[in-house]
């Protein structure tokens, strides 16, 4: 089929060409800028700790470890088992502390409270503390992101 009139004028075509080309040029400049300004996230898949450092912990006590760029908290339960948390308040990212005498995690920034299992029980935190998965293999204490385990099960 042959059109009687062209759909756009020569001027429109050239303007579109120039504009599109300028846009593509701008995008090619913006790409490296964005790559540079937003470095890739650095949350580790797992961290491996020496179990010897944590074996002698008393029940109902915590010890910190490094979870990438965040503090990780390892807690020994009364029955001798371990729990691992990302020690960051789910409200606005402050680091939390464990108050052993009250058996609670506490965030000082906005008075947030979690029970000894990391469940949010008072103040503004909307979610429980993030749990990490622990496995002990020989002398290594391996801490992984939650969900990794389930993937392996399938």
């Amino acid at each position: 089929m042959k059109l009687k009139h062209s759909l756009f004028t020569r001027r429109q075509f050239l303007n579109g060409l120039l504009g599109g080309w300028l846009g593509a040029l701008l995008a090619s400049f913006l790409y490296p800028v964005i790559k540079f300004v937003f470095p890739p996230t650095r949350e580790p898949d797992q961290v491996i700790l020496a179990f010897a450092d944590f074996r002698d912990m008393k029940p109902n006590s915590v010890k910190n470890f490094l979870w990438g760029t965040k503090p990780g908290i390892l807690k020994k339960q009364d029955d001798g088992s371990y729990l691992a948390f990302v020690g960051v308040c789910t409200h606005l990212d402050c680091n939390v502390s464990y108050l052993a005498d009250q058996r609670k995690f506490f965030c000082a920034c906005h008075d947030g409270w979690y029970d000894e299992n990391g469940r949010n029980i008072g103040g503004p935190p909307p979610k429980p503390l993030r749990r990490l998965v622990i496995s002990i293999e020989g002398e290594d204490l391996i801490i992984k992101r939650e969900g990794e385990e389930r993937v392996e099960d399938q």
Partner: protein
Amino acid sequence: MKTGIQSWLDERLGFSNILGFLKEKTVPQHKHSIWYYTGSAILLFFTIQVITGFMLVFYYNPTLDGANESVARIMTEIPLGWIIRSVHSWAASFMIAFVFIHLLSTWLSKSYRNPRELTWMSGVFLLAVSLGFGFTGYLLPWDDLSLSATKVGTDIPSSIPLVGVWVTKLLRGGEDVTGDTLTRFFGFHVSILPVFIFILLGVHIYLIQKLGMSLPLAAEGKKEKVREIPFWPNFVFREMVVWLLLLGILFSLAIFFPPSLDKAADLMAAAPEGIKPEWYFLFLFQTLKIFPAKILFLNGDTLAVFLMLLAGILFFFLPIMDNKPTERKGRIITIIALVVIAYAVVMTIWSLL
């Protein structure tokens, strides 16, 4: 056609005056109009420096222990960091090179004459600030090369009697180049010099708009009508072609020849062999080298520094000294310019041998 928001803003800001001015603005066309593009080329590279500088400062750490390491991190870990640093380094050279070309074109065409004396003088200050950016930026990677260059550079003022020692102390933040010097140079580079360059650029560009583009000597004299093209869009489109060309060259060089980074400087180590400043300081560097230790009863480098200062002052006051009517050719001034160019080129080549 104006929307409500546009007219609301315009009533308060009055930007339609500026837009109107830019719509009316014309640029003369003649066989020397190629030099008009050097100014906008400088602005292009300056803009690149501002943007890449903002980016580098996100990761750079201006401390004795962290500087070299943070630059190494930019070069190896941060995504595309090596390109950003390379572009910053290359665009600095390009900017200085175009500052020189811009300046020489003004000098040779005598465009600094009445009424453009202040444009020239603000330009000389802009040159000084640009060189200051280059000099302070050279130290920031904190490797052997940059340390030695800074030791030499900051020692030069100390040969001026009375005030010189204090200038050196001011630059170094103490008797010697230390970690404090690094932090101070970082401060000059990212906060003090930027304030000055923005003010000076504002004055310089305002003067150019107020006084209009200068014309070649012959046209100025005859007062005959020179062909003109509108600034927008004709001239701007031509400028964009030049910018694209320059960007292509800049990025190619930046990608294929990224700047080096040596291990962190050791403040107590001996200067490495073959230390050199950036290319635009080579002619001054060589001048200092060839002056003997003693000339008659004077210290060699004191005399050299005085001569450089005198040259700088004469250079600054060039429009006051050469205040002939605009149409005069000014052969002596042209010859002096050519002698200065020849001197700089010969000295630069000599220092590279």
